[in-house]
């Protein structure tokens, strides 16, 4: 697989380190700043090139036409969006991933056909939310195209779901309980699996079902 990473800052550098150890992958890192590019080149070698990743002719030079994946992770949302659009519409790159620095832009990126968006502030928020006791439905990942979200549920004592089997729960339509982690470790549940307070449950739920899920596993509605 041929992967192009645009942006050689902290995120791009970290990504390059992860990708370069994978076997059978070819990786190119594009960094616009000349000094930053030569610094990266000292460490990562030939895979680093200096240029503007949002420019059509430069993407052509690095072989975007045969890329399987382009990941744009600069600190500039405009550059990330345009780079992914050029890759997709001019070079038919099958999959594009963009970093979203301003969370307001995420909806627009998805609407414009960027396959996956990665938002650092959202990832940090999710981490923080897991440590707050009142956040018992923690969104882990949004599958926007399908209107679904993967959530981490912390089952509270005395909640409607406490002590009941999955088949007896009034789950929101479209919900899939994927994993239950309790005292006995992780189990892939079936209809008869009984949930207990203290269990951690990974579920796929419709995006608009977060509130009803919250009530089911805490026993009270979402505080507004």
């Amino acid at each position, binding site marked *: 697989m041929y992967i192009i990473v645009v942006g050689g800052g902290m995120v791009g550098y970290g990504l390059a380190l992860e990708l370069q150890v994978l076997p059978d992958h070819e990786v190119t890192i594009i960094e616009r700043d000349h000094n930053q590019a030569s610094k990266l080149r000292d460490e990562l070698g030939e895979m680093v090139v200096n240029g503007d990743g*949002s*420019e*059509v002719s430069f993407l052509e030079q690095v072989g975007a036409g045969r890329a399987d994946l382009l990941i744009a992770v600069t600190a500039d949302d*405009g550059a990330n969006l345009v780079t992914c659009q050029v890759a997709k519409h001019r070079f038919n790159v099958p999959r594009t991933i963009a970093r979203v620095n301003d969370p307001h832009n995420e909806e627009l990126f998805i609407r414009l056909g960027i396959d996956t968006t990665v938002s650092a502030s959202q990832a940090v928020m999710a981490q923080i939310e897991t440590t707050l006791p009142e956040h018992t439905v923690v969104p882990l990942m949004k599958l926007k195209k399908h209107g679904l979200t993967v959530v981490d549920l912390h089952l509270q004592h005395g909640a409607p779901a406490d002590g009941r089997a999955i088949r007896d729960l009034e789950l929101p339509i479209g919900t899939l309980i994927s994993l239950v982690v309790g005292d006995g470790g992780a189990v892939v549940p079936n209809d008869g699996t009984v949930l207990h307070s203290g269990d951690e449950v990974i579920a796929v739920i419709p995006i608009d079902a977060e509130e009803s899920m919250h009530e089911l596993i805490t026993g009270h509605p979402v505080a507004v």
Partner: protein
Amino acid sequence: MNVIVMGCGRVGASVAGQLSEGGHDVSVIDTDPFAFSRLPTNFAGRRITGSGNDFRILEAINIEEADVFIAVASGDNRNLLASQRAKHQFGIKNVITRVKDPQRSVLFEQLGLSTFSPTKNGSELIITSLFEETPDKLTEASQG
């Protein structure tokens, strides 16, 4: 018309000035407050210091009520981000985008934006004026 002009360089200031003089309701945005000194002294519109890609600013000027959005800031990508947001997220019908890079200009025109490339227009003008075979020039050439 309610018009938003993003970027108050020479082009932005000139367009904003002319539209304002024509009686239109104009808001011009630039990150550098000094840029507003390019506006004509009788400019009656709003001057907003900040980024045309900052949601707080877009909300403050009620972007969704604009009829026209003109992106003539200095960066192509910044203009393309703001224009696509104006068109696809806020439903503004008339969006005009300056894209200096001719290749990106063509591509985003194909993707439904109204773009123009001063680089392309300028170089075409130069080539045309060099090889335009007007009678005058032919005479000059034969004499020289």
